[in-house]
């Protein structure tokens, strides 16, 4: 294999150019700027960074960002599974429209989504009025943050589960049915376990997007410090006060926490795949 790999490497031209362009593109746009983020907070000293992050307002913002993102992705997971199931398994008029609309949060600019959700859930909005009647306020509360993040995370869940569901062979399900399993049993014991890795991937993608989300959230959140202020907004506030070290400390903490959670999900997923193999 290594011999064929070695000869292959020389068969096609363009290795040096393409790798060079790739590394320059990646280095200049992504790696060097991220290095600046990794360096900047430490001019405060380790104690200073800890003090910045331990400020009640910062802690509250981080808690809201991560808590709301995890909750929203957890809500989006079953909803996304249902959507993927309906799109791949059933034929009904309007299925293609439904399929296309799932991508709407990908294609709709975040500020537009934010404005739209605010208009919808505001006390005088189409959904705000009936919700107010039953005593639920969504706009300008942490609930609004979660609603916006469900909107953002949903397509990631649908689009990662969908291909697996489509490729699932009917034989396993048929075998289970032949052996006397009821339909719900088959779904729980046969279908769901094969979907877990894809669900985790989708959860990771949706969470990564939700936790850093800014545009869809700030309009509906109300942005009350300690209550409905998300961490990215606090970074913007610190920047506006020219407090670069504090802004970068919060940014670095957010990024590292998010990457740690994604890494954990990745390990979990690998363990699942190994367990099934």
């Amino acid at each position: 294999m290594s011999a064929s790999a070695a000869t292959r490497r020389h068969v096609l031209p363009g290795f040096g150019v393409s790798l060079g362009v790739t590394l320059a593109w990646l280095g200049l746009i992504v790696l060097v700027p991220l290095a600046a983020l990794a360096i900047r907070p430490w001019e405060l000293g380790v104690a200073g960074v800890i003090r910045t992050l331990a400020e009640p307002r910062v802690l509250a913002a981080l808690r809201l960002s991560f808590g709301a993102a995890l909750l929203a992705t957890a809500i989006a997971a079953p909803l996304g599974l249902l959507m993927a199931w309906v799109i791949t398994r059933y034929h009904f008029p309007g299925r293609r429209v439904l399929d296309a609309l799932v991508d709407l949060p990908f294609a709709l600019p975040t500020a537009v989504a934010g404005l739209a959700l605010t208009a919808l859930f505001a006390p005088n909005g189409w959904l705000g009025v009936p919700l107010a009647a039953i005593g639920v306020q969504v706009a300008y509360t942490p609930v609004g943050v979660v609603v916006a993040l469900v909107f953002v995370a949903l397509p990631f869940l649908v689009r990662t589960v969908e291909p697996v569901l489509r490729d699932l062979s009917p034989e396993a399900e048929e075998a289970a049915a032949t052996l006397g399993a009821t339909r719900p049993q088959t779904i729980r014991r046969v279908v769901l376990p094969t979907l877990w890795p894809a669900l985790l991937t989708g959860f990771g993608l949706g969470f990564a997007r939700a936790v850093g989300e800014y545009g869809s959230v700030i309009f509906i959140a109300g942005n009350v410090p300690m209550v409905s202020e998300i961490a990215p907004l606090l970074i913007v506030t610190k920047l506006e006060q020219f407090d670069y070290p504090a802004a970068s400390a919060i940014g670095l903490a957010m990024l590292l926490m998010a990457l740690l959670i994604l890494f954990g999900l990745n390990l979990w997923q690998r363990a699942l795949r190994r367990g099934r193999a």
Partner: protein
Amino acid sequence: MSGAAIADPRSLRWLAIATAVVLTVAILLLPLAAVFAEALRRGWEPALEAILDEDSLAAVRLTLLVAAIAVPVNTIGGIAGAWAITKFDFPGRRLLITLIELPFSVSPVISGLVYVLLFGAQGFLGPWLREHDIQIIFALPGLVLATVFVTFPFVARTLIPLMQEQGRDEEEAAATLGAGGWDIFRRVTLPNVKWALLSGVLLCNARAMGEFGAVAVVSGHIRGQTNTMPLHVEILYNEYMFVGAFAVASLLALLGLVTLGAKALLEALARRRMGDAA
């Protein structure tokens, strides 16, 4: 299609479809409808007036300009990355893919922040830039850089899995027959990936034109100069010019809808092409 044994009970099926439709209408379709309804609340005239306003038009021009620079940069980078990763064996390929996808896990606000840390007044290169009278933050270069960062993975991400699947046989055959690198790419690889490439470029463009968080950090919000369309929407909204805000937002929503339609069309074309091949 499949046996009756694994067909879901009729009641379950209709319940699932109904729930999915209600969900789609409530959390996807209604927000979209709300944008247009708010824009047209007082009829067409105020909405059109808001869009044809001088500052709005300047924002449209700036948004188009930023996308016209950012999208080609990521298209060229994405093609180069996909070519290097899928056509050659070298150590660190998986790491390279992870790094290329990294910007998707970075908050847009942080994507803007990193450039402020580099090029801002108190940034690492700030003093040097000021000495040489070069402005990056609160100017076009900053907007472009932040936009390139957030849309970085789109093209590479759509190309890599497809090119991996297609292998290298066709390209190697062309190389054996004496074709040069550029000819191989243009005549062999490109026809095989063109629909995926277009779809990646389309999504990249939609995000580039609609990006808000990253450009909000580097823009400085100077009307008529560094205000892109999404930023203009925010300014109008904060000034309680709701019709104007929603009118410009409608324009952006239309961009999103056109992108969705074009993407669906490309997917249909790609499917038909695969059907022809089979």
